[in-house]
C-alpha cells in the first residue's frame, strides 16, 4: 500500500471529504449563504466524474486489504450514486441555503460510497450508519411541516432496530465462520448450520428494513412524507440504490440456496403487492412514491434469485433507470409551498399549466410502471429474465402480476395531469432555473437509455 494508491482508489471519497471540510470552513468564515450550493454541486460532480473516470479505465485496487477495495463494479456504482445525487442537489437549490444541508448530504453520500467498497462488515456497518445518520436530520430539516420530527424519529428508531439486526447478524456470521470479512456472508449463505442460517436471516432483515421491504416498511411512508422534496428524492433513489448495490456486493457470487428462496422471494413479492395496492389510496405524492419505492424494493430483491453473475447487471441497470425516472418526477413537480406541492390534487391540470413538466412526469410514471419504451421496462425485463433463467418461473409470474397491480396508480397521476381540470396555480417561483437544469440532468440519460438501452447493457 503506497500513498498514491491510497489517493487514487479513494479519490471520490476524498473529494467528498474535501467538500465537507471546505463547507465547514466556509460556514465559519463566510457570511453570504449563496455559494454553498455551488460548492456542493462541484464536489458531487467532481466525485462522480472521478468515479466514472476510474471506472472507464478499469481501475482496481485494495488500499486497505480486507477492509476497503475498489473495482470497476464498485466504481460504476459510486458514479451512479453520485450522478443521481446531482439532480437532488440541484432541486435543493431553491430550498436550502444553509451549509448544513450540504454537509449532511455529502456525508450521507460518503457513507453510501463507503458501503460499495466495503470488504468487511465493519466498513459496511460504518458505511450504512454514515449514510443513515445525516438523513435522520435531513428529514427534519424541512420543518415547514410539523410531522417532520415524528417522521425523523420513527425513521431513526426503526433504522436503529435495523442496525441492531445487522449487528447481531454480523456477530453470528462471525460465530459460524470466524471472520468479519464480507465474504463470510457468502460462506454463511452456503453453509447449513443453525447459526449461519440465523446470521443470514438477520442480515437480510436489516437490508429489508433499510430498503423498506414489507413488513419492515413502516418508516418509509412517514419519513418520505415528512421530508422535503429534495430529501425525499434523495432517499428514494440514492439510499435505496446504495443499499441494494451493497447487498449485491455482499452476496457476491453465491447462489441462493433453496432453503432461502422463500425468504428472498416471498417478502419481496409481498412488498410488491402491498406497496402497489396501498399506493393506490394515497393522496400525497411523496407517500405514493414511498409505497411505489416499497414495491420497487421488492422487484430489486427478486434479482437475487437469478444466477449470480447476472445480479450486478440487473441491479445496477434497474437502479439507474429507476433512480433517473424517480428523480425526473421529483424535479418536475410544480413549485410552491411544500405541503401543497405534495398533494396529488395539485397536479390536476398540470398539462395546461406546464406541458413540459407534465409530459416528463408522465414519462417517469410510465417508466416506473414498467411500460415500454421507457427504460423501466428494460430494467424489469432484465430482472424477471434472470429469475426465469434461474428456473423460478412461478415466482416470476407472481412477480409480474404483482407489478401489474402498480399500473393503476401511476396512470392515475397521468390522469390527474392530463384529464382533470385544475385551478390555476400561482406563477412560478425563483427556483425554476435550478429545476430546469436538474430535469435536463435526468432527461438526457433517460432519452439515451430509452432509445439505446443496449448502449449501457453491453457495457455492464
Amino acid at each position, binding site marked *: 500500500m503506497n500513498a498514491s494508491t491510497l489517493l487514487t482508489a479513494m479519490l471520490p471519497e476524498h473529494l467528498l471529504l474535501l467538500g465537507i471540510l471546505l463547507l465547514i470552513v466556509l460556514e465559519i468564515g463566510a457570511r453570504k449563504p449563496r455559494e454553498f450550493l455551488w460548492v456542493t454541486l462541484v464536489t458531487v460532480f467532481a466525485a462522480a466524474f472521478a468515479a466514472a473516470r476510474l471506472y472507464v479505465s478499469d481501475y482496481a485496487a485494495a488500499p486497505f486489504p480486507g477492509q476497503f477495495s475498489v473495482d470497476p463494479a464498485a466504481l460504476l456504482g459510486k458514479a451512479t450514486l453520485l450522478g443521481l445525487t446531482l439532480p437532488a442537489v440541484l432541486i435543493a437549490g431553491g430550498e436550502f441555503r444553509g451549509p448544513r444541508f450540504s454537509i449532511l448530504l455529502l456525508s450521507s453520500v460518503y457513507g453510501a460510497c463507503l458501503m460499495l467498497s466495503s470488504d468487511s462488515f465493519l466498513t459496511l456497518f460504518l458505511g450504512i450508519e454514515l449514510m443513515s445518520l445525516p438523513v435522520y436530520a435531513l428529514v427534519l430539516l424541512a420543518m415547514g411541516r410539523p410531522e417532520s420530527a415524528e417522521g425523523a424519529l420513527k425513521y431513526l428508531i426503526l433504522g436503529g432496530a435495523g442496525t441492531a439486526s445487522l449487528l447481531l447478524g454480523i456477530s453470528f456470521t462471525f460465530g459460524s465462520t470466524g471472520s468479519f470479512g464480507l465474504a463470510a456472508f457468502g460462506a454463511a449463505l452456503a453453509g447449513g448450520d443453525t447459526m449461519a442460517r440465523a446470521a443470514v436471516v438477520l442480515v437480510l432483515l436489516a437490508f429489508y428494513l433499510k430498503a423498506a421491504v414489507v413488513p419492515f416498511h413502516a418508516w418509509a411512508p412517514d419519513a418520505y412524507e415528512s421530508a422535503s422534496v429534495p430529501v425525499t428524492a434523495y432517499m428514494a433513489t440514492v439510499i435505496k440504490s446504495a443499499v441494494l448495490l451493497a447487498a449485491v456486493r455482499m452476496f457476491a457470487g453465491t447462489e441462493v440456496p433453496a432453503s432461502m428462496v422463500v425468504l428472498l422471494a416471498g417478502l419481496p413479492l409481498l412488498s410488491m403487492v402491498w406497496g402497489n395496492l396501498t399506493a393506490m389510496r394515497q393522496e400525497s405524492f411523496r407517500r405514493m412514491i414511498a409505497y411505489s419505492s416499497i414495491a420497487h424494493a421488492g422487484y430489486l430483491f427478486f434479482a437475487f434469485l437469478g444466477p449470480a453473475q447476472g445480479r450486478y447487471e440487473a441491479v445496477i441497470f434497474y437502479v439507474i433507470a429507476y433512480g433517473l425516472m424517480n428523480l425526473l418526477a421529483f424535479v418536475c413537480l410544480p413549485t410552491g409551498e411544500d405541503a401543497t406541492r405534495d398533494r396529488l390534487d395539485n397536479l390536476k391540470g398540470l*398539462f395546461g399549466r406546464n*406541458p413540459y413538466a407534465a409530459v416528463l412526469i408522465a414519462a417517469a410514471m*410510465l417508466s416506473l410502471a414498467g*411500460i*415500454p*419504451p421507457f427504460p423501466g*421496462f*428494460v430494467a424489469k*425485463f432484465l430482472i*424477471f*429474465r434472470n429469475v*426465469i*433463467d434461474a428456473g423460478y*418461473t412461478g415466482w*416470476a*409470474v407472481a412477480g*409480474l*402480476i404483482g*407489478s*401489474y397491480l402498480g*399500473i*393503476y396508480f401511476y*396512470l392515475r397521476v*397521468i*390522469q390527474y395531469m*392530463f*384529464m382533470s381540470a385544475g385551478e390555476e396555480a400561482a406563477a412560478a417561483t425563483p427556483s425554476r432555473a435550478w429545476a430546469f437544469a436538474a430535469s435536463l440532468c435526468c432527461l438526457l440519460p433517460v432519452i439515451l437509455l430509452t432509445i*439505446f*438501452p*443496449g448502449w449501457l*447493457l*453491453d457495457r*455492464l
Partner: protein
Amino acid sequence: MSEAAMLNWVLFLPVAGMAALLLVPRLRADLVRGLSLAVMVLQFLLTVVLYLEFDADLGGLQFETRLPWIADWGVYYHVGLDGLNILLVLLTAFLGPLVVAGAFSAIQKDVKLFYSMVFFIQFAMLGTFVAQDLFLFYVFWETMLIPMFLIIGIWGGERRIYATLKFVLYTAFGSILMLAAVIYLVWSLKSQTGITSFAFADLYGTRLPLDAQVLLFGAFALSFAIKVPVVPLHTWLPDAHVEAPTAGSVILAGVLLKMGTYGFIKLGFPLFPEATAVYTPVIMVLAVISIIYGACLALVQDDIKKIIAYSSISHLGYVMLGLASLDLLGIQGAIIQMVSHGLTAGGLFLMVGMIYERCHSRDLAAYGGLAKLLPVYSVFFMVLTLAAVGLPTTSGFTGEFLVLMGAFNAAWPQYEAGVTWPLVLACLAVLGVVLGALYMLRLAQHFLFGESKAPHQPLADLNLREKAILALIVVAVFWLGLFPDSFMRKTELGALEYQQQVMSRPAGSWVSVEPAGGSAP
C-alpha cells in the same frame, strides 16, 4: 433511397411528425393540422410505393432491416414486410390521413398533443405490424397503450376515464402474462440451442413439450384475445368505443383490433403448433360465439356507436374463424376481412362522428329520416352499411365469403370422416351473416328512413373535406370488393408459409387431436 430503407422511412415518419409538431407554437392549431395531414399523406404515398414494389412472387421478408439494438441480449431492430402484414400496413397508412382529416373540426382542445398522440399511435401500430423480433414486437405492442390511453382519456366522452382505465388495465393484464411467456420462450430457445435470440424466425424453431406449449400459448392467446376481442374478454370494447373521440374509435376499430388477430397469425399459431392443435376447437367455438353474440347484442343497442362496436366483435369473429380453419382460402379471407372491417367500421365511426358534431347525440331513437335531410350523408352511410353487411361487390363480401369457404373446406373432410361439429360451427357462422344484415338494416332504417326527427334542424350536409374522406373509403371498399385478386396475390405466399408453418410440425393435423377435455360440442 435504397429499397430497404423505405420501410424505415414509413415507420419513422410519424416520429418525425411528432418532432415537427414540437416546434410549432401551441396556439397555431391550423398549422398543426396542416402539417399533420401533410406528414400522414406522405406516409401513405410512401406506403403505396412499398405496396407496389412488394414482389408477390417472392416468399419471406422484403424490405428487411436488421440492426443490433441490445446486442447483449440478441435483440435486433428487425423489420420487414411479408404477405401477412403488407395489407395491414397499407390499411394503417391509408387510415392515417383520414383520421387526421376527420378530426379537423372535432378536436379543438390541446390540438398539438392530440396530433402528437395520433402520430405516436401510428408509429406504434406500424411498428407492431412490421417487427420481426419478439422484443421489438412487445415494445411496440405495449407502447400502443400510452397514446390510446391519452386519446380516450383526454378527448373522450363523459365516462372517458372509466373507459380508458378499463381499456388499459384489461390489455395490460394480458400483456403481463405474455411478457412472462416471451421470457420463458427465449430462455427455452437458449437452453436448447445456446443462442439467445428474439427473432421470430429462430423462435419458430423452438421445440417445447406439449404442456409447456399449452401454457405459453395460453398466455399469448389471452393477450391477443383481449385485444381482438374474443367474447368473454370483450367488455372493455363497447365502453372504449363509446367514450373515445371519433378519431380514437376509428383507430381502435380500424387498426388496433387487428393487432390481436395479427398476433395470432404471426405468433400464437406458428410458435406453438401442437398447442394450436389442442386449442383450435376452443378458438373456433369462441369465434362462432363472438359472431353470434356480438351480432345479437348489436341488434338490441340504442347507442349507434355501441351497435358498430358490437358488430366489430362479430366481424372479428369471422377473422378468428378463418385463421383457425387453417385453410388457405380461409386465411386469405381472414386477412381481407381484417382490411375490410378496418375500412367499413372506420368509415362508419367517422360518419357517426360527423353526425354527432351536428346533433350531439348518439341515441338511435333521436334520429330518423336523415335520408331527406342529409342526402349525400345518407348515400355514403348506406354504402358503408351494405359493405359491412357483406353485400356482393363490396369488400365485406369478399372477406366473409372466403372465410366461410375456408371453414367449409376445412370442415367437409372431417364430416366425411364422421366428425360433425366443425360443420355445425360453419353453419352457425353463416347464421351470423343473416344477423349482421338484420342489425345493420335496423340501424339504417331507424337512422335514414322513417319519420324525420333529427334534432337541431336545419342540418348542413357534408362539406368537401368530409365528402373527400368518405369517398376515399368507399372507393377502397369497392376496389377490394371488385378486384380482390391483386390484393390476394400479395398475401398468397405469406398465407401459404403460415399454413405450412402451423400444419407441418404436428404429428397429425389438428383433425386427429381430440378436443381438449371434451369441452367442444
